[in-house]
């Protein structure tokens, strides 16, 4: 046996020889197998990615080292023993972890690019072999070395155990939000919504913003935690949720590719249409260009006279260019990194092709119409030409009779003038006669084509040609005839009055003017030429006329375009995709379910924190609202049928429909935010003008519901619960929303209240939006008092005052906050109110509600406050007191007014929002109502406008007012488990500076001093 003299190696007596040899042999064998395996892999996988050679070399070196270490172990080297032990332990650990992670999640994506074999087929043998080698190596140790080996193995086992325990914990975990506000767990509403999901859900979290104020890395973890909980909740009901966390550019590109496939898949017909267009575009463009190039017309061709030849060519060239651009644009959208909006692209192609077809059709139609011109001219051509010739001859005679300026003066001027007068009369007769046949030509066309294309014709045709087929020549001939006639008569009248010199002077002036007759004569020649050309088109033009008549002007173009456009008839309705726009924004979550993908924007998941939050927070501080935002999106994407119908109910001023101002389509514009929130909450929203019958009239007999309020609200025969939201004022349209032209206020008349009673008794539930100063609702309030015992005191306004810091007995009224009162003393007992505690709700025009004990409702009513006022710094003032306060404010006594109770005021406690339910009675269904005494706080303007709590300070609008309506709607139909609100906020610390100055020294110095004092006590006791 060789003795190892190497100082780094321990004596061989530390090794158990038989096991050491066996372990060495196994290691050498496995090392050689590894080397062989790498070589075979390299030889059989010739196409390898860059950098793989380096990896193969590293593997070869590693296996070679194992062989060398095995060989040294055969020689008794203990260092080799340790190295091999560590190697096989690490190998075993890695194999175990890879196998486990595959079992828990899935096979790693890179594995398939590495080997075609299943991962388990490699991991299991490696695990077994590593185990065997490790066991042999441990057995090969003797005494202390075996002890060390065992320690190494046990540490490895402990590490493995820790990793495995954590891997399993990551896979299956339990998470419970102990915090009272439940900001980090799933709300009951979300759990309820998830229960209704049966299709696999794909959630893609793209929080990649690098903007410091919305950095993806900062906002992402909480989103991932929440979505992880959703995944777990869905897994428990057997629904798969796949969460993709997109962080890198490569992942973003992969996401776009996935979305592209989804979008294309959802609009396959549109996709085929676009692909067919792209496939045919080149041939189509070529055909158009060919048509433009092949123009068989000579310069003097008939159609060219109309400008159609070059015009058509130009038009075709432009069309080819447009199609080329369209093709490039569509190709770019398909090939680029964008998610193609296939529906929009298909519409774009369809519109462009239709425009091309229309252009071609128009050109054909025009040619077809022009083809009628020769036929129109021909029957009248000879007569017109003869008449024009006669006119020309008469004109010639007149010219001769007048003579030229250089001619000698006539000896008998009177006779010459008489001759001229006679010639003029002949000209007048000839021209007037020529007007008739020329007009016949115009009449034949009835001025249709030519007048319709007057502008184009005037640009393309010369004046004479255009004149022939327009009305002008007839008019001009008649006009000239009339002029000659007048001239003749004028001369005839002058003749006896003039002396011989005077007559000579007239003749001389006529000779001077006679030159203008030459242009008239020339025009006659042009008329003749035009008549000739208009009646006889050339051969090439005639051929085109024939093609146009047979609608075969562009056969090579029309057929493929018609075929392509024909495909669009089969298009199914598909919503345009806004995914590109959403993806271009920072930090979005994509929710994919049942083939649809929609985005949840960052501002919904992380809205800005309300101003009531910590004062030290910056204006950009955000609060997590992911639970509500993602669940709402899932709700709208999965619920196929609305939970119920909400009728926004109002009454316009006049009862008679004939007198009522017409309601525009967008008549409920001031309530659009509420309507939109209700739609998002899966309600159908309609409107009901109480002057009209109920829109979805149902039998008015009371139902006998099986159980529960959800069914109780639906009358017999109705499948959906109905909720009446009784608005405080009549709606104003966007069209008439001019402050200078106010709409007349509406009134709820007793007959309106009666209609409400009838519907509610029939099973509808209702939310009444009352408030201070809404006397027009008196009839409704009377109904509430009589039938429900709810007394809304709309003649009183609730005000809130602050205690004076100097004199706590004195109260100051802050006029600014009257329009935004932060009342949120919601009752824990009401599901509507409970979820709104700590939420940002603000109210205006609030009046008190009390229970009217004297009222005797026809059935038993349960009255429950939702929101109450208990603070002694708040009370309700009547109009007289309010007027006094207003006068004080107006007189410039400042924004903060000293205020005190007056005899007419109502002191708390009282309510501002209540819910009431009643039991079924004879002829009346059991149902529920909610009354809010601050209806004006739910208009769009109030919900969307920032306000000024203090000078130079702007505050955000209320974020949770709309939740009150949505929660009420859910409560009214009995779907309590859908009730949710916006982000919750912890109540802030309230400590004055004076208190703080006392507390901090006490705590900061007192506590450590107390500890040190304790040491003093202990040491003293010990000394004794």
């Amino acid at each position, binding site marked *: 046996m060789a003795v190892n003299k190497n100082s780094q190696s321990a004596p061989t007596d530390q090794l158990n020889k038989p096991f050491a040899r066996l372990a060495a042999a196994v290691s050498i064998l496995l090392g050689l197998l590894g080397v062989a395996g790498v070589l075979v892999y390299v030889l059989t996988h010739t196409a390898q990615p860059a950098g793989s050679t380096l990896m193969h070399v590293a593997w070869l070196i590693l296996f070679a080292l194992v062989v060398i270490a095995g060989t040294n172990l055969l020689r008794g080297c203990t260092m080799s023993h340790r190295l091999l032990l560590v190697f096989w332990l690490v190998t075993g650990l890695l194999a175990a972890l890879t196998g486990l992670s595959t079992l828990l999640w899935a096979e790693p994506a890179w594995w398939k690019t590495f080997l075609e074999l299943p991962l388990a087929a490699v991991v299991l043998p490696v695990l077994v072999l590593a185990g065997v080698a490790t066991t042999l190596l441990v057995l090969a140790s003797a005494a202390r070395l075996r002890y060390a080996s065992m320690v190494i193995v046990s540490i490895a086992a*402990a590490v493995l155990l820790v990793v495995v325990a*954590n891997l399993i914990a990551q896979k299956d975990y339990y998470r419970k939000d*102990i915090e*009272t506000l439940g900001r980090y767990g799933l709300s009951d509403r979300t759990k309820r919504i998830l229960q209704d999901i049966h299709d696999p859900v794909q959630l893609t979290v793209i929080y990649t913003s690098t903007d410091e104020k919305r950095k993806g890395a900062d906002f992402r973890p909480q989103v991932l935690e929440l979505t992880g909980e959703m995944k777990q909740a869905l897994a428990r009901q057997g629904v798969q949720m796949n969460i993709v966390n997109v962080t890198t550019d490569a992942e973003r590109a992969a996401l776009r590719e996935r979305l592209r496939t989804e979008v294309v898949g959802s609009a396959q017909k549109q996709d085929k249409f676009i692909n067919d267009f792209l496939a045919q575009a080149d041939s189509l463009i070529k055909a158009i260009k060919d048509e433009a190039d092949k123009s068989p017309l000579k310069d003097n061709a008939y159609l060219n006279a109309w400008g159609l030849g070059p015009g058509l060519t130009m038009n075709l060239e432009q069309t080819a260019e447009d199609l080329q651009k369209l093709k490039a644009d569509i190709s770019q959208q398909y090939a680029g990194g964008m998610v193609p909006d296939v529906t929009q692209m298909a519409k774009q192609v369809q519109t462009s092709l239709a425009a091309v077809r229309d252009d071609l059709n128009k050109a054909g139609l025009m040619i077809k119409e022009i083809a009628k011109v020769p036929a129109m001219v021909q029957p009248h051509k000879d007569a017109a030409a003869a008449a024009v010739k006669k006119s020309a001859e008469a004109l010639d005679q007149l010219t001769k009779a007048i003579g030229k300026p250089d001619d000698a003066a006539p000896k008998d001027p009177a006779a010459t003038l008489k001759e001229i007068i006679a010639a003029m009369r002949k000209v007048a007769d000839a021209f007037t006669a020529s007007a008739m046949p020329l007009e016949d030509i115009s009449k034949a066309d009835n001025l249709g084509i030519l007048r319709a294309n007057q502008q184009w014709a005037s640009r393309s045709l010369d004046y004479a040609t255009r004149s022939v087929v327009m009305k002008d020549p007839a008019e001009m001939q008649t006009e000239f005839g009339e002029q000659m006639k007048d001239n003749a008569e004028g001369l005839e009248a002058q003749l006896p009055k003039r002396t011989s010199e005077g007559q000579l002077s007239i003749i001389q002036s006529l000779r001077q003017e006679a030159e203008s007759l030459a242009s008239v004569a020339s025009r006659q020649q042009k008329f003749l030429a035009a008549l000739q050309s208009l009646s006889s088109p050339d051969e090439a033009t005639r051929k085109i006329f024939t093609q146009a008549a047979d609608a075969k002007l562009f056969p090579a173009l029309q057929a493929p375009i018609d075929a392509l456009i024909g495909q669009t008839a089969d298009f199914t309705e598909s919503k345009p995709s806004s995914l590109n726009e959403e993806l271009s924004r920072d930090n979005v979550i994509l929710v994919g379910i049942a083939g649809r993908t929609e985005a949840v924007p960052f501002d919904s998941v992380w809205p800005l924190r309300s101003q009531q939050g910590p004062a030290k927070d910056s204006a950009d501080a955000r609060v997590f609202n992911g639970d509500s935002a993602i669940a709402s999106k899932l709700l709208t994407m999965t619920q196929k049928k609305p939970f119920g119908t909400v009728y926004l109910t109002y009454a316009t001023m006049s009862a008679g429909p004939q007198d009522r101002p017409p309601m525009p389509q967008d008549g409920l514009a001031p309530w659009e935010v509420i309507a939109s929130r209700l739609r998002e909450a899966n309600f159908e929203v309609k409107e009901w003008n109480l002057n009209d019958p109920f829109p979805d009239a149902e039998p008015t007999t009371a139902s006998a519901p099986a159980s529960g309020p959800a069914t109780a609200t639906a009358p017999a025969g109705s499948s959906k619960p109905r909720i009446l939201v009784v608005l405080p004022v009549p709606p104003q349209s966007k069209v008439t929303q001019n402050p200078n032209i106010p709409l007349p206020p509406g009134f709820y008349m007793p007959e309106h209240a009666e209609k409400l009673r009838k519907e509610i008794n029939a099973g509808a539930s209702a939310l009444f939006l009352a408030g201070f100063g809404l006397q027009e609702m008196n009839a409704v309030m009377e109904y509430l008092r009589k039938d429900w015992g709810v007394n809304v005191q709309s003649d009183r306004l609730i005000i809130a005052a602050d205690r004076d810091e100097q004199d706590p007995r004195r109260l100051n009224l802050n006029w600014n906050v009257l329009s935004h009162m932060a009342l949120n003393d919601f009752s824990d007992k009401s599901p509507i109110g409970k979820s709104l505690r700590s939420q940002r709700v603000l109210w205006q025009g609030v009046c008190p509600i009390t229970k009217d004990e004297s009222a005797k409702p026809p059935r038993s009513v349960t009255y429950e406050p939702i929101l109450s006022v208990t603070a002694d710094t708040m009370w309700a003032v009547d109009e007289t007191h309010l007027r006094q306060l207003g006068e004080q404010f107006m007189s410039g006594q400042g924004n903060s007014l000293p205020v005190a109770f007056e005899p007419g005021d109502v002191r708390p406690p009282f309510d501002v929002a209540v819910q009431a339910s009643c039991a079924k009675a004879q002829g009346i269904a059991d149902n529920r109502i909610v009354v809010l005494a601050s209806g004006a706080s739910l208009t769009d303007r109030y919900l969307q406008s920032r306000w000024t709590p203090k000078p130079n300070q702007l505050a955000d609008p209320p974020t949770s007012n709309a939740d009150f309506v949505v929660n009420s709607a859910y409560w009214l139909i009995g779907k309590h488990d859908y009730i949710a609100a916006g982000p919750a906020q912890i109540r802030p610390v309230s400590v004055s500076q004076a208190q*703080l100055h006392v*507390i*901090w020294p006490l705590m900061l110095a007192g*506590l450590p001093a107390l500890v040190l004092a304790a040491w003093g006590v202990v040491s003293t006791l010990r000394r004794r």
Partner: protein
Amino acid sequence: MGKVLTLARRELAGYFFSPMAYIVGALFLLVCGVLFFWGLPWLDIREVFSSGSESSLRPLFENLAYIMVFVGPLLTMRQIAEEFRSGTVETLLTAPLTDAQVILGKFTGVMGFYLALLAGTIPFLVLVAIFGQPDAGVAVMGYLGLLLLGAAFVAVGMFTTTITRHQVVAAIVGIAILAGLSLMMQLLVKYAPEPWSYLASLLNVMTYFQDFAKGVFDTRALVYFVSIAGLFLFLSIKTLESKRWR
């Protein structure tokens, strides 16, 4: 178990009979007070207690977790290293105690002292309760989180004190390990590219602690802290054990 508790009692008494525990306690409360009333503005750490701030001890808990990176090893640094240095380890190893009992006893003793330190923060909670409305869930889970985090950190400290006879070295190594698991991982989470950022978030102590600070109970965090504590205690036992046969 009795032997473990006896040893733990002895260790705890050792703390309270020496002035060091009181000095550490007073300093700890002073630091807490500074964080509570003023924060550390230059490190962007906001004060916990001021008018308008959230009535919760969560920010204090989160800052304490970072402070524990340093306090944990400092509390444990003398436990075994000092025994080696002074030679009393021989007595300890020859006593009728197993290595595991020695480690667990000392660990329990340190945890007792750590609990006493945490108890010192209760006046702050009382103050917040007087001037605000703190969430009981957040407070309970925050203290539970600090307890688990402390257990893990003290276990790391126990391990480092077994590997050297020098207290300072033990403390430095312990702080380095804990800083690696917290501060370094935080930086990797923030600045490393994926998937390293994700992997770092899985290893980051603070990721798990923040759940507790928020008032969320998560079994992942529980398993993480317990397994880290268990692993390092096991390593401590094995290291101490190796002293016998090396």
